């Protein structure tokens, strides 16, 4: 099986449907709680069954029953302590109570469900995995020598050393423990910036992004919320600079916004978009050949409003709604406050700042 991500904790599985999907592997720290829960459950089950036997035996009170009850007690102890895991994993689809509580499941390394024989091997060999036993009596002499604590070093070591985080029992049985997926929300990226669809309409209609670019765009759109505006621009610039050259956008256009617009165009926009609603960009063109045309005042106030209602874009919109501003937000606020007072001279101001950038 190909393992392209040597350090990752996922494993690819090819199904009979001939598709490959990924499982997340469970490491020692997910499995330890499951083991401890199972340990407790095992003893509770033994005690409960034995108690039940003795109570019913006491109620029936036939004297011949005593030895049979004792024999059954031994058998219950033997079966539960040795075959609890085997039986649970076989009849509950690779899960014990502890695994169910921790959301784990034991499966075949090929992704098929575990079989009874494999479950038997991996559960019997737990004895070897829990070795070496630490004898408490060597430290504290008054503890009886029978009292040994399993350290589990063998299992831990093999789990660390193997690709699928298998303990010895798993290796011998050909099984692995995976995280059992429960419900998972489908992540959707929503575009809430009204400038994005408008800007997207400035890409030529026949522009198709490459496959790797599409993936990059999707990852960018999902992750950009975790980045500061400055970082977004820094990351996006590498990809948008060729685009700016190719489609002749203005050089002061915000790279983050351009990436977002391209994402919108690739993933969300309707390809038969006949008349794009320019919205806040009405009358404004991001293209370089339109750079010297005068802009209307209406555009300015509209953009100011969208900025006010909390769009994700933080670039100052005083002059150019799509322009990047590498300076701090403090400066942006200051310029935003000065905007309305100096609104009469917007046209000339806009041109000037475009040149100074």
């Amino acid at each position, binding site marked *: 099986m190909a393992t392209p991500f040597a350090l990752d904790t996922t494993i690819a599985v090819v*199904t009979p449907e001939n598709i490959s999907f*990924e499982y997340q592997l469970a490491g020692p720290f997910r499995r330890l709680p499951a083991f401890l829960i199972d340990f407790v459950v095992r003893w509770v089950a033994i005690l409960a069954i034995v108690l039940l036997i003795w109570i019913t035996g006491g109620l029936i009170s036939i004297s011949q029953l005593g030895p049979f009850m004792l024999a059954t007690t031994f058998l219950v102890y033997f079966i539960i302590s040795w075959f609890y895991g085997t039986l649970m994993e076989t009849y509950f689809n690779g899960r014990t109570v502890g695994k169910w509580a921790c959301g784990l499941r034991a499966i075949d390394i090929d992704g098929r469900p*575990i079989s009874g024989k494999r479950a038997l*091997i991996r559960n019997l060999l737990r004895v070897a995995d829990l070795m070496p036993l630490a004898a408490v009596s060597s430290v504290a002499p008054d503890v009886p020598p029978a009292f040994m604590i399993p350290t589990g070093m063998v299992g831990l070591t093999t789990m660390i050393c193997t690709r699928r985080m298998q303990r010895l029992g798993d290796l011998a049985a050909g099984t692995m423990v995976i995280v059992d997926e*429960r*419900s998972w929300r489908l992540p959707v990226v929503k575009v809430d910036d009204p400038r994005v669809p408008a800007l997207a309409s400035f890409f030529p209609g026949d522009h198709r992004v490459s496959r790797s670019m599409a993936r990059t765009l*999707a990852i960018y759109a*999902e992750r950009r919320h975790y980045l500061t505006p400055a970082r977004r621009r820094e990351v996006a610039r590498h990809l948008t600079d060729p685009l700016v050259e190719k489609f002749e956008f203005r050089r002061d256009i915000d790279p983050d916004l351009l990436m977002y617009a391209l994402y919108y165009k690739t993933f969300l926009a309707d390809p038969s978009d006949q008349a794009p609603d320019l919205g806040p960009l009405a009358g404004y063109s991001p293209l370089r050949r339109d750079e010297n045309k005068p802009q209307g005042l209406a555009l300015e106030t509209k953009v100011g409003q969208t900025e006010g209602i909390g769009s994700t874009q933080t670039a100052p919109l005083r002059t150019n709604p799509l322009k990047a501003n590498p300076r701090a937000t403090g400066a942006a606020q200051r310029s935003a406050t000065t905007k309305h007072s100096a609104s009469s001279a917007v046209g000339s101001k806009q041109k000037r700042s475009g040149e100074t950038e």
Partner: protein
Amino acid sequence: MNPAKLLEKRRDQWSELESLCDAMESRGQTDKAGGAHHQGAEGIARFSTLYRSACADLALADAYQLPPGTVTYLHRLVARSHNQLYRANKFEPNRWTDVLFREAPQQIFADACVRWAAVIFFGLFAMSLFLGRNENMFPDFAQRMVGTQQLEQMEEMYEQPLNGSLDHYVQMSGFYIQHNTGIGLSCFASGILIIPCLFNLAYNAVVLGTVFGYMARPDVTGGDNFYHFVTAHGPFELTAIVLAAGAGLRLGVGLFSTGGLTRIESLRESAMKAVPVMAASAMLFIGAAFTEGFLSPSPAPYVIKAMWAVLSSGLISFYFVVLGFPRDETLLKRIEPAGEFSDAT
């Protein structure tokens, strides 16, 4: 079609599959999912249809240029449904006779590990029996090996002639199943590390041999009663220990003697081979436990016990040699699976 439209279109089916998964996880049936077309066989059919289409969506995710988040979601959805659709194989009790009476003896006969375990166990057993018996040449051997206290306890235990009752028999059988089979199973499990298994085997051989030898001394009280007790179940129990250790050693040796397979694959193959041997061993342990529980402590005459010992030895020999002798069909079967190994993993 752009990805957003596609997602909108497929989302209904995906969420239906999710709700079916929920129902399968809690009940193992799709009935609880609600819809009229989710009852019984129809529900299963619906589930597999949805699963296949989710598989197809995942396979085409790259071509559709689905966003990575959606691909992750699909991976998880498919993994989840896969776990529900392909469920664990139950044990097949009708195959157990085949495992016990065909696979196990064949494997035991062919397995060098079982032979080595037998040589180690019975060799050490015979040696310590001789050393423990011979008081003149090795006066302290028994005391040093087993301990004076334990030997005195043994003598005390067998001072009285055997006289058990039914109460005693039943509970002791249960105890022996639990205790001795447990020892056998842990001996098997530690075989993967080889040394603990060998130690366990040798320790048991030496202690048992010494006790047998000590009790055989003419001046020891209770010697007759001791042999009265152990004769009947001896063949079963000693063979069972050897088989358990042999099966365990097969695991450990599989790590070194790989026979051309990768180390891990060889370990897996050996584990599959060792299971029938361990099953045979467990069967012998249980047979020994019933003998030890019912026949051995009974006041039945020694002849009967000795006859049972002879009979059980004969049965074991028949099992190993006659059932275990390589047959042509097994030779053929052994050649056939070669193709299987090469394409796995």
